[in-house]
Structures are given as structure tokens and as C-alpha cells.
């Protein structure tokens, strides 16, 4: 296990450099004149241009210049300096403000997924082909069939405007109540998947030979399902939830955009829209790390949950 984690950590370093390089290249390759982009609508004097060209090492041209700037960026990044966005704000500060909001949103979405998705999945798996099972099937297909870009504005209109139960938008520094509706919308997709996954897994495990053994031991049904079946059924579900949590932590561009939530996804989208190269690259670099760590945690968790899996 130790060697597995070590190997994965080394792979993560490679993956980190690879992805940041690609994002860095894509973001700056698409840009026209970076100095003009920095200045926006205002004119740039030759003196300012000369100063900025030197400051950002833009005097070095071609592929050599690109790598010089990339390595310069990495050097700062490894020292914990994400740099400044084109608006002049420290990217570190932007993330420090945005991340807690995204984490709150992710926790709500995850709670909704586990509370309703996994529970309903277990019930549907136990009572296969019942009315409840079929009802959840229809509902989950419906949710899975509607893209977030439709579901989010729909929920916002129906539950925020038409019947104003929830605040329609979150705004700056939102509280948990304001994040509840977006959290449910965000969680509904993973809820549907978690439900289907749990149901299949429970139904499959109920037919397993070890269940027959547990019955022949004379255990009560509650224990057979609650201990033997659940412990096995939840292995793939927990793996899925782990990956899903990694996704949620990296922000939700559409949901945060629709409900005007100043989270990571919201800032990332703004960076892309305003061609704010440093902001996009900065956020993505951090997201890459989050994602890699989340995946590692899931892999380790998998081995802990299923003793048959040994990484060596």
C-alpha cells in the first residue's frame, strides 16, 4: 500500500506539470495581444508597453520564450504565489474567498445525494419491481435526461420566482439557506446516478451466495441486509461519491452562474469570458491538485473497503 501511494504521488507530480503546461499553452496561445488585454479599452503608451513587455518577459519570443514564462510561472506557483489576475487582484485572495462558498455548496449537494439517493437506492434494491422502485426509476431517468442548464433556471424560476420559497439568487457571501436550492439542483444529478448505482448493487448482492449463508446461520433479516448486504453494496457507491465530491469541490460553472454564487466555478467562468489568462491558469492549476488528491483518496478508500483489493 505504501509503495502504491508513493507511486501515485510521483504520477501526480507528472500529471500536475502536464496539465498546467497544456492549460498554460492553450490559454495564452489563443490570446492576441496580452498587453492590450491587460489594459482593456484604454490606449497603451509606448513607455507602458516597454515596461510591461519587460516585466512579463514578453521580449523573449517563440517557443523558448513560452517555456521561459511557463517555468517562471511554475517557480512562483511552487512558492505558493498564484500571481495576479488581469484585474490586479491576487488570485490567491480570489480563491480564498470563492472556495468556502463552493465547499458549502458541495457539502449540501453531497448531503442531498447521500440522504435521498443512497437511501432510496437501498429501498429500491430491496423492493425490486415494486411501485417504489418503478417510481424512482421514472424520476431518476427524468432528472438524468434534463441537463443542468435547463434544470437550474427551471428550479430558479419555479421555486425562486413563481413560488418564492427560496431566494432566487445567492449574491455575495451567501448563507446556507441561499445555497440550499442550488445545492439541491447540483446534487440531483449525482443523486440520480447514486440511486441507480445503489439499487443495482443492493439487488445484485441480495442474490449473492453469502446472503444464503447468512440466512442459514439464522440471522434476522434486518442484520443480513443492514450488515452483510450493505457493507458489500456500498463499495462502488462510496467510490462514486468520492469521485463526485472531487468534481463538486472544483465548482459548478452552470449552477453557480445561474444562481449568481461567487464560487470557484463562477470565477473560472468569468476568467474564461474576460480572457483573464492568469486567473484561468491559476484556478485550473489548483483544481488539478484537488482532483488528483480526490482520486488518490478514492483509490485508497477502495482498498480499505474491499479487502480483496491489494495495490502492489
Amino acid at each position, binding site marked *: 500500500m505504501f509503495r502504491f501511494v508513493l507511486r501515485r504521488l510521483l504520477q501526480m507530480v507528472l500529471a500536475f506539470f502536464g496539465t498546467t503546461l497544456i492549460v498554460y499553452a492553450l490559454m495564452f496561445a489563443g490570446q492576441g495581444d496580452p498587453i492590450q488585454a491587460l489594459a482593456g479599452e484604454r490606449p497603451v503608451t509606448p513607455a507602458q508597453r516597454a515596461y510591461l513587455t519587460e516585466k512579463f518577459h514578453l521580449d523573449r519570443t517563440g517557443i523558448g520564450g513560452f517555456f521561459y514564462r511557463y517555468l517562471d510561472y511554475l517557480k512562483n506557483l511552487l512558492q505558493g504565489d498564484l500571481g495576479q489576475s488581469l484585474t490586479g487582484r491576487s488570485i490567491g485572495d480570489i480563491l480564498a474567498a470563492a472556495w468556502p462558498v463552493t465547499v458549502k455548496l458541495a457539502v449540501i449537494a453531497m448531503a442531498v445525494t447521500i440522504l435521498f439517493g443512497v437511501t432510496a437506492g437501498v429501498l429500491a434494491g430491496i423492493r425490486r419491481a415494486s411501485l417504489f422502485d418503478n417510481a424512482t426509476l421514472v424520476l431518476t431517468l427524468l432528472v438524468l435526461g434534463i441537463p443542468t442548464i435547463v434544470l437550474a433556471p427551471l428550479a430558479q424560476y419555479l421555486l425562486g420566482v413563481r413560488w418564492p420559497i427560496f431566494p432566487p439568487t445567492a449574491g455575495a457571501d451567501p448563507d446556507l439557506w441561499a445555497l440550499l436550492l442550488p445545492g439541491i439542483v447540483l446534487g440531483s444529478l449525482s443523486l440520480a446516478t447514486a440511486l441507480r448505482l445503489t439499487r443495482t448493487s443492493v439487488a445484485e448482492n441480495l442474490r*449473492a*451466495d*453469502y446472503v*444464503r*449463508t*447468512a*440466512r*442459514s*446461520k*439464522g*440471522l*434476522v433479516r434486518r*442484520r443480513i441486509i443492514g450488515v*452483510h448486504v450493505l*457493507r*458489500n453494496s456500498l*463499495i462502488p457507491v462510496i467510490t462514486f461519491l468520492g469521485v463526485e465530491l472531487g468534481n463538486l469541490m472544483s465548482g459548478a460553472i452552470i449552477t453557480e452562474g445561474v444562481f449568481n454564487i461567487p464560487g470557484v466555478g463562477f470565477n473560472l467562468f468569468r476568467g474564461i469570458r474576460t480572457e483573464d489568462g492568469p486567473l484561468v491558469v491559476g484556478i485550473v492549476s489548483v483544481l488539478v491538485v484537488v482532483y488528483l488528491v480526490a482520486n488518490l483518496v478514492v483509490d485508497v478508500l477502495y482498498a480499505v*473497503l*474491499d*479487502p*480483496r483489493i491489494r495495490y502492489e
Partner: protein
Amino acid sequence: MTESAVRPTPASPTPPGGHLLEVRDLHVEFRTGEGVAKVINGVSYHLDPGETLAVLGESGSGKSVTAQAVMGILDTPPAVIRSGQIRYRGRDLLTLPEEQRRQVRGKEIAMIFQDALSALNPVFPVGWQIGETLRHRAGMSRADARRRTVELMDLVRIPGAAGRLGDHPHQFSGGMRQRVMIAMALALDPKVLIADEPTTALDVTVQAQIMDLLADLRRDLDMAMILITHDLGVVAGVADRIAVMYAGRIVEHADVHALYRAPAHPYTKGLLASIPRLDVRGRELATIRGLPPNLMRIPTGCPFHPRCPYVQQVCVDVVPDDLVLADGRTSACHFAQEVHDDRAR
């Protein structure tokens, strides 16, 4: 008759307190999308304290389903018990409420299964799985259960038992896994042990060890055992009586020595002839022609008639009764006596 009836025969009168376990005229169907499969069609057998009954048959003959009906672990649906009785110490288990039925499982009648790898829960340590029965059925404390678990694992001769409590099923060899399974079944001192093809998934040498272990345990713990198998070779050294099943019915029921010496049903005769023998070399192995019947369309008359070398018109038309032969054994064949005396054409 040619045989001396020294041993108790199948038709021996019911002992004063009744049999320990008795299956009476059991009928079980499986209702599936394609139709109704008549899996058990009037099975009757009994078991007395301390004896071993072998239930022999091909896959699909209904031997495991009968055992699962006795245990009360048949999945219903698709299985439906149409009629019959399963009497344990005089009580019909089929009429008991589920809660009382559950009390019988493991405590009175325990069962071990063919493939211990899938029959054990893959994510729990074996010590935990054996101890679970002790903690939740016998109400033992964690420490007591642990002590008793080690005793049980010693009893089934797992070397270094105390050090293996925390191992998971996949860390054991096939033979050791089956021993874990047996230890688990013995946890509550059952009076009846049902062994459903306990050695089928194992190597030949390990098979012999497990069979020896089961025979020893049965004797030492004074249990009765039902040994389900398709392997005539496994039966000879262990069983007292044999019930041969075909198409959900017991076609021959006899004392083990009597059956080996002179089978009284053509199917049994075919099975015996198809055992490879070391002393008869260079001859092609005898087989029973044809395939076991489709249980959704069991042939008319005697279900074995399409495969029987002695078939007559009466076999196609009339379902044979259980004929009781002179020495008390039974055979569901119109020509049982002739087959037995080897006079059948």
C-alpha cells in the same frame, strides 16, 4: 433373498419418538417467465439421530432445492412449496411462523455449501463471520465468542487458528475455506448438518480430507448428516443410506452396501456403471444416454423412460410407484425386482 438384512433398512418402522427429520411428499415449483418448472415432485426421506443419508443425483435433480426447503432458505418467489411436510422432532417446519423457523436454522439444522469462496462474505474476516453466529444467536460476549471461534477452527483442523481470525476468505486455500464454512455451521451445535456438495469445488486430495473431517465430526459431535452429492465415489465410505434423485423424485432409496451390490433402478445402475474403474482398463466408459429432462416438460410415465435401456410400453404410460423390495429398499421402477436381480431384458 440374496441379502441378509443386518443393517436397518429404509422401510424400518418409525422409531417411538418419530424420526429426527422427515420430509414427506414435498412438491416444489419454480415459476419463471418461461413457465412452471416442477423441480420437486413428491420427495420423501427421513433422517434418524447419528446417521448419514446421502442424496445423490445430477444437477437439476432437485437435491439442493430439497435441502434449501428444509433449511427454509428457498427464494420464494420464484420457488413455491406446493405441498408436503418437513417435520423436525415432530413439528412441521413449513407451518411455523418465520421467527420460530429462524430459530431452527443454524441451531438445530445447519448447512454448508458447495463453493465456500462465494458462500462466505468477502469483506469480513473469517473470525468475525464465525463469531457472528455465536454473538447474535447464542448471545455470547465478544471475548467468549472469540475463544469459542478459535476452538471451532481448531476442531476443523485449521492450523494456527488463533492467528488466522483476522484473515479474509480470499486469503485461505480452497480446503481451508471449506473448513471455515464447516466451523461456522458447527457453531451452535446443530443436530443435523446438511452438506451440499461440500467437496465439488476442491482438488481430489483435499476432497478426501474434507470428507474424512466431516465423517469424524459427525461421529464425535453425534450429529445426523445429509450429504448431497453427484459423486458416487464420495458416498461409499461415509453414508449409511442413499437416496438417488432423478427429475425431482427419489427413484431409489437403499442401504449403501445393498445399493452398491445390486442397484434396483436402471438409473442407479447406469450411474454405477459409469464410474471409472482401475481394474477394468481399455474399455470405453459406460454412459447414460440422453440428457436429464427439462423440468418444464417432464416426460409422461416414468420420467427416466427416454433414457432407460429397459424401457417398455408401461413405462411410457404409467408413473411407477415406489416399489418396496423384499429387503425393505424402495425403487420407483416398474421392473425394480428384475433390475435388481439382473433379469431385466
